[in-house]
């Protein structure tokens, strides 16, 4: 920890953040994973955040840190070595809790040549690993976690941030592509071991208002024992319900959420994908849907 807190203003996806922290791992994480994202003091800030040590006895015995959003503390504190993942989870919370100008779906979304694919997935579906791999083969990451769909147009908007990978996925991606920039792996989190990957330049050098039509919705199912690597079409109706279930704010948006999903599914084809974890094969299957 530093003696005195530092303040940084930086762009996290499409939102401007003012961060105050004295935790050095957080500052290092930002330098590494948001290298071209610093913004001037004059820029207007969306979210004011503080990552600070928990005061009192916890400062000395098994120190913890807490995420503070405009003086509100929405989560329990975490051990200090999880400070950078806490920032990333907190930034996700900021978006998924507040940004009702979008329908927000818990899904990865990538774009190439004007077409976007959305991959919702429960933990363990393999979506994050696939998302990271696709981004290393020319796809632009709109987001690895939060698909943002404009409620008036049904188009998806980019919000690219470091890709969160867990456990074996970290080594898998490190083997898949050398020279990828990763944060240090943090162990013993609620999700196991976690590391964050710097997204490619194509993802972060973009015009924030450049939207994309969603052309495919793919539900990946990773199964190491799978004998067939295949994509199978599924009905729009069942996809509709699954997307609604995987949305953070479908209930808040009400009818607007319903009409937004209708607009998306008017143009998107829907698939289930079974694959055994071979990433090159997975990428081929995803690309075959377009």
């Amino acid at each position: 920890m530093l003696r005195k807190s530092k303040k940084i203003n930086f762009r996290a996806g499409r939102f401007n953040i003012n961060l105050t922290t004295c935790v050095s791992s957080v500052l290092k994480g930002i330098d590494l994973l948001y290298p071209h994202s610093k913004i001037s003091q004059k820029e207007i800030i969306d979210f004011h955040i503080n990552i600070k040590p928990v005061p009192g006895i916890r400062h000395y015995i098994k120190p913890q840190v807490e995420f503070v959003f405009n003086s509100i503390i929405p989560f329990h504190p975490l051990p200090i070595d999880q400070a950078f993942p806490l920032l990333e989870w907190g930034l996700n919370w900021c978006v998924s809790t507040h940004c009702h100008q979008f329908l927000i779906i818990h899904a990865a979304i990538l774009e190439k040549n004007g077409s976007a694919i959305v991959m919702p997935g429960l933990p363990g579906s393999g979506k994050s690993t696939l998302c990271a791999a696709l981004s290393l083969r020319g796809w632009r990451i709109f987001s690895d976690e939060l698909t943002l769909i404009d409620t008036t147009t049904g188009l998806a908007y980019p919000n690219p941030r470091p890709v969160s990978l867990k456990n074996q996925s970290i080594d898998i991606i490190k083997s898949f592509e050398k020279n990828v920039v990763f944060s240090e792996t943090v162990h013993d989190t609620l999700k196991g071991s976690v590391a964050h990957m710097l997204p490619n330049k194509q993802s972060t050098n973009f015009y924030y208002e450049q939207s994309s039509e969603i052309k495919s919705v793919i539900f990946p199912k990773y199964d190491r024992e799978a004998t067939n690597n295949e994509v199978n079409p599924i009905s729009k109706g069942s996809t509709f319900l699954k997307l609604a279930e995987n949305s953070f704010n479908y209930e808040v948006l009400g009818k607007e959420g319903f009409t937004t999903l209708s607009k998306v599914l008017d143009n998107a084809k829907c698939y289930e994908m079974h694959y055994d974890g071979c990433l090159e094969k997975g990428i081929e299957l995803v690309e075959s849907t377009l």
Partner: protein
Amino acid sequence: MIRKLDHSEAIKQLLICPWLVSTWSEKHWESLISQCYATSLMARVNWVLKKNNLTHHIPQTLAWHFAAANKAYDAHLHDVNREIDCINKALAPIDIKPVYLKGAAYIVTEENASHGRIFSDIDIYVPKNKINACEQILLWSGWVGSNKDDYDEKYYREWMHEIPPLINIETGATLDIHHNLSPVISRIKINANILEKQIEPGKKANTYVLSPEDRLLHSAIHLLTGEEFYKSFRDLTDLDFMLREYSNKDKEFWEKLISRAREMGVGRVLYYCFRYCSRILHTPIPASSFAAIKESGPHRLLLPIMDSLFYRTLNPSHTSFKDNLYGVSCFCLFLRSHWLKMPLKILIPHLLKKALITLENDKEAKDETTPLSNNQ
């Protein structure tokens, strides 16, 4: 009072003099948004701007914060109205006409305090002799108890002025059923029978509310004898809105309010309400009303202490307003709240029990390292 006109007190400036926003820089608006998040007042502030035709001053890049908060508020309003319909329908067969309290009351009366106001529970008042029937029929109609242990059951049923909360299985909404405005064992003793004489219909069909004076006093009791302060500035703005609106509608409101407060034995609460609403939010309260309530104020040596505690806890809980004594002030008022609610022989064991429960919860949280949010 507004101590400074820089952006560190943006939210107070806006609520006291909305037209000031026409002079604001973008940084000023940025501070406002941050303070709105801290106080859960984004949608309410947006309503104030709309009412005063000032929304065109909002910087384009920040407009989404207000629009998004409005959507959340609209969803909340819909859900509350639907829940009220469910409650009324469930209680109709036994001819109980629930009296809606606090946030739900603001909505069924469509008063200014309803605008942009989000709350977590629906509160109703039911006469004590109908509480059992009310609880039974709700349990038959799809509500469940909220898994309280034996100690909590005793706390609610023997000591408090409400029964343990019920939850609607279908919607997940929490319902608090009160049979008085203050706890049975409280040092502030309110005779619930006098409340019933002044119940009136709400604007929403089949709903009832307390009289304006009683609604004001209930909210004031809740804020000024309560134990939690993270939403206290928002609750203070409720009182400000209510005092302004009710006094505009009824010339005799101030006299009725003061006389009612005396009748209920809550003159001290009203004294603090007048004092802090006028000093923090510049609520226009007639000098005669201040004079009339003066005798209910605290001892002259106690007043500066109460000022010190309440100024810290009733102002926004945002870093722009908090100082090093904020935490201590909250703790002092927490102790005071319990002292008001309970006689000493119940209070001390209760506080010990609460401390033990807090330690156990902290240990569980540490073991699980569970963030409060699922949105990771």
